[in-house]
């Protein structure tokens, strides 16, 4: 059996088994994530060496069967998903403050892992619909683990997610009616720039943008991500919103007719810059720690949207690299940030940003993790965020008429710096007296630091990483 399919099957099987055997769930989840990571790494190695693979489930022919595609990008995302799941599982199991240790978190997180893996591997409009539905439902269920106070946000998310799915499904139906195929690889050869295709693309994109919380369809995200348990917030921000983004990227960069893509590009890019500024501004204003981090996700997705929009507009291959570097760097940094924020919030006993006053003295490791992860979001050299921004800026500077876009990137950088250092500056204030139940958890804080260090250590392999991504995304 193919390694990529093993990486997909492991979490799904574990999820089913956990329905039966409920005790010590975290051991199985961590083990499944680890094995899934190893097989994803193996699959990545194979696909980089041997090129794109098509996988037929059950041995059926292409027109009837479910067919999966393993590309270097999907291999990379498979490994990335497993890595994040592994980190978060250890946190959820070991932190004193984890709200998810003895809950339904374990089977749900496995299902989430499985549906994401299926999404990365699918190349079929309808398969994507199925994985998106599964992803949305599991995500809503995981938010409700936080208890009744999260029900409102979860319900809101559920409604919007179902609405978004309908939009997407409508678009898929139109495409099927027009061309009679759903397989993307077949569709690529048939597609024409007519009205029904245009309508279908717009409908699908609206649905996907709503699910990926791309500005201006992001309103559900801050409440949902902030009210979820810490481990779930980390998974949602780092991975779940990237699923619909991946589909959007494939749809527009491969399926959409060139003229249509070139028209849509500037609109998407503009939305990206507005996301950066508006999301950053909201993060600067909110009084709550986790809401700040959630708004930062809205803002950072703006970079991805900007890269995607400009990519469609100019067809410059480097921008693929920028897009995926943003996704990787943001995912790692955001896991770190949510875990650190969650730890500080639980230890200091308040959800408010003000309570972080003096955190450099009371919780130095968690605060440092927050600052280091924030440095990557700002794009300080040599972090992963910097690499992404650097690759994005290079084509923007080549011609003077592209410079206004670079100005947008600069605005985004400044707003990001403002909300990150809003927290960091507060942490250097003199600390308040400790609460009597002050009980920090050093292991969990160092665990929060780990992904932040990983995103900065992308600098060590930056040149091969960029060159490699340049080679595989063409």
């Amino acid at each position, binding site marked *: 059996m193919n390694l990529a399919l093993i990486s997909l099957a492991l979490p799904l099987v574990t999820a089913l088994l956990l329905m039966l055997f409920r005790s010590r769930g975290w051991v199985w989840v961590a083990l499944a994530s680890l094995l899934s990571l190893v097989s994803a790494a193996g699959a990545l190695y194979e696909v980089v060496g041997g090129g794109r693979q098509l996988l037929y489930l059950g041995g059926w022919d292409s027109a009837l069967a479910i067919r999966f595609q393993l590309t270097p990008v999907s291999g990379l995302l498979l490994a990335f998903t497993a890595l994040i799941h592994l980190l978060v599982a250890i946190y959820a199991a070991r932190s004193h403050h984890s709200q998810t240790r003895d809950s339904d978190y374990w089977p749900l997180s496995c299902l989430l892992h499985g549906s994401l893996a299926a999404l990365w591997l699918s190349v079929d409009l309808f398969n994507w619909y199925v994985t998106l539905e599964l992803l949305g439902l599991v995500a809503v269920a995981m938010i409700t683990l936080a208890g009744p106070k999260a029900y409102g946000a979860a319900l809101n998310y559920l409604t919007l997610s179902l609405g978004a799915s309908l939009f997407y499904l409508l678009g898929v139906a139109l495409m099927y009616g027009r061309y009679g195929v759903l397989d993307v690889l077949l569709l690529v050869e048939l597609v024409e720039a007519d009205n029904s295709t245009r309508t279908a693309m717009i409908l699908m994109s609206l649905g996907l943008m709503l699910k990926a919380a791309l500005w201006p369809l992001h309103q559900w995200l801050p409440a949902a991500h902030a009210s979820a348990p810490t481990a779930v917030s980390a998974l949602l921000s780092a991975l779940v919103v990237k699923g619909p983004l991946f589909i959007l990227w494939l749809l527009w960069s491969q399926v959409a007719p060139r003229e249509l893509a070139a028209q849509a590009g500037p609109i998407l890019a503009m939305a990206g810059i507005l996301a950066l500024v508006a999301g950053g501004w909201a993060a600067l204003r909110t009084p709550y720690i986790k809401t700040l981090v959630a708004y930062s996700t809205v803002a950072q997705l703006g970079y991805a949207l900007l890269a995607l929009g400009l990519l469609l507009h100019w067809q410059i291959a480097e921008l693929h690299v920028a897009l995926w570097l943003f996704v990787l760097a943001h995912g790692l940094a955001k896991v770190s940030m949510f875990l650190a924020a969650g730890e500080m919030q639980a230890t200091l006993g308040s959800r408010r940003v003000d309570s972080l006053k*003096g955190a*450099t*003295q009371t919780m130095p490791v968690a605060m440092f993790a927050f600052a280091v992860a924030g*440095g990557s979001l*700002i*794009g*300080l*050299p*040599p972090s992963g965020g910097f*690499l992404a921004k*650097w690759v994005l*800026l*290079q*084509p*923007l*500077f*080549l011609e*003077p008429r592209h*410079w206004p876009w*670079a100005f947008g990137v*600069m605005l985004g*950088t*400044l707003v990001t*710096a*403002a909300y990150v*250092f809003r927290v*960091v*500056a507060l942490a*250097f*204030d*003199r600390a308040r007296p400790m609460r009597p139940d002050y009980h920090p958890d050093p292991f969990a804080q160092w665990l929060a630091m780990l992904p932040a260090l990983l995103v900065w250590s992308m*600098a060590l392999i*930056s*040149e*091969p990483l*960029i*060159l490699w991504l340049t080679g595989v995304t063409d």
Partner: protein
Amino acid sequence: MAWTTALPLAIVLSSLVPGLLIFALREDQHWQRTALNLAGVFTKLLLVALMLYGVSRGLVFHFSLPFLPDSELVFQGDALSLQFVGLSSLLWLATTIYAIGYLEDSPLRSRFFGYFSLCVSATVGLALAGNLVTFLLFYELLTLATFPLVVHRGTPEALRAGRVYLAYTLGGGTLLLMGVALLHSLTGSPDFMPGGYLAPLVESHPASLVMAFALLILGLGVKAALIPLHGWLPQAMVAPAPVSALLHAVAVVKAGAFGILRVVYDVYGIEPVQALYLDQPLLWLAASTIIYGSLKAMQQQDIKKRLAYSTVSQVSYITLGVALIGPLAAIGALVHLVHQGLMKVTLFFCAGNFAETLGVHRIQEMNGIGRRMPLTMAAFTIAALGMIGAPPIAGFISKWYLGLGALQVDHAWVLAVLVASGLLNAVYFLPLIYRGWFAQPPDQWHHENRRWKKTRPGWRETHWMLLVPTLFTALLSLLAGIFAGTDISPLAWARLIVAREFGA
């Protein structure tokens, strides 16, 4: 790995490693912390001395790591970087000893000294950076490492100053990033080289080059405190005295000025700068900053604030010398990089001594302080006279060369700026000297420090760890002036650099 390859890296690591170790120390591990600090300081001095010797013999020190496509992470030891590295490591020695004495028994010292070492590592990394991308990396790192030092006291004023500092420096860093990325998109980021590497693009991409120059100078101008980007500097003086000393003399403002040197000499090159008419705006900016800083300094009644505005004015001498585009002015700029550092660090040490020993913060309170603290006041007098430009102190040498340089390139009006600035310097420094030596002291010093009992005029006038560095740097500023003509002076080294840059 050959030793010439490893040496630049070792110089950066010699403060980075002790700094990281210090973070791990408990608050009460006083001796371990001091030992790590001093070990770092002396190792670095030794390594820098070795490199100085090597470079004067014509050896090439070059270390590189792969980083971005078309741009490696490069450390290189050339004559220009050594001017800055030498200054930083020498003043780091003085400032470390001063800081150990200054912060005795205060809280959060491990955090302080950890970031202090990081700050010096960033400065040295920036000085040794061999291309723009590496320079950018350490420029940002310097911002991050100095911020905790500025807000170290955790008071509302410190935090406010810290926020202002961050807003300015991160904004500047972003502009610099944009400038570096713009140049990189044109030619990649090759190593710095005398004469620059952009000359072939002057014909084909003039707009891009002008834009990039504006971005780079604005980004660097924030740290170099060029008006109107200087607003953070007077506020940042709420930091503890050793931090102010380091910020004003070496680390931050000099990083900006040094960057301007690099951009003009080693990235653009002199002829492209002139061909694109970029030198004139820079010259005007520097000249107006010099006058503006002096005028503002006159209005300040707080000693440290007056010193801060004096820095705004004095650091722009370096930019002025660069913008004049002539070998003699270049010598003036390069030598002022060192001289201003020596004198300004002395002045801030003295201000710190007054504040810590007698609680004197304002100029009116300085009456008769020379009788109570004669040695500190003597050091203050030397440094202040040097700032005014009185021979034979170091400041005179820089002004002399700047003046000659202005005449050499037919900008006589710059001479008027220099004279006016010298007069203004006298107006705001001489009253302090007069009050200190000749005014009647108060009957009792109200806020006399109780920590060190039995302080009395002379060698015991304050804690020895505060006094010795002050005298040491004052002596250096005197010696740098007196022995300017010898082969081992900063002036001789500046001549060497200019000979290599201008090919004369």
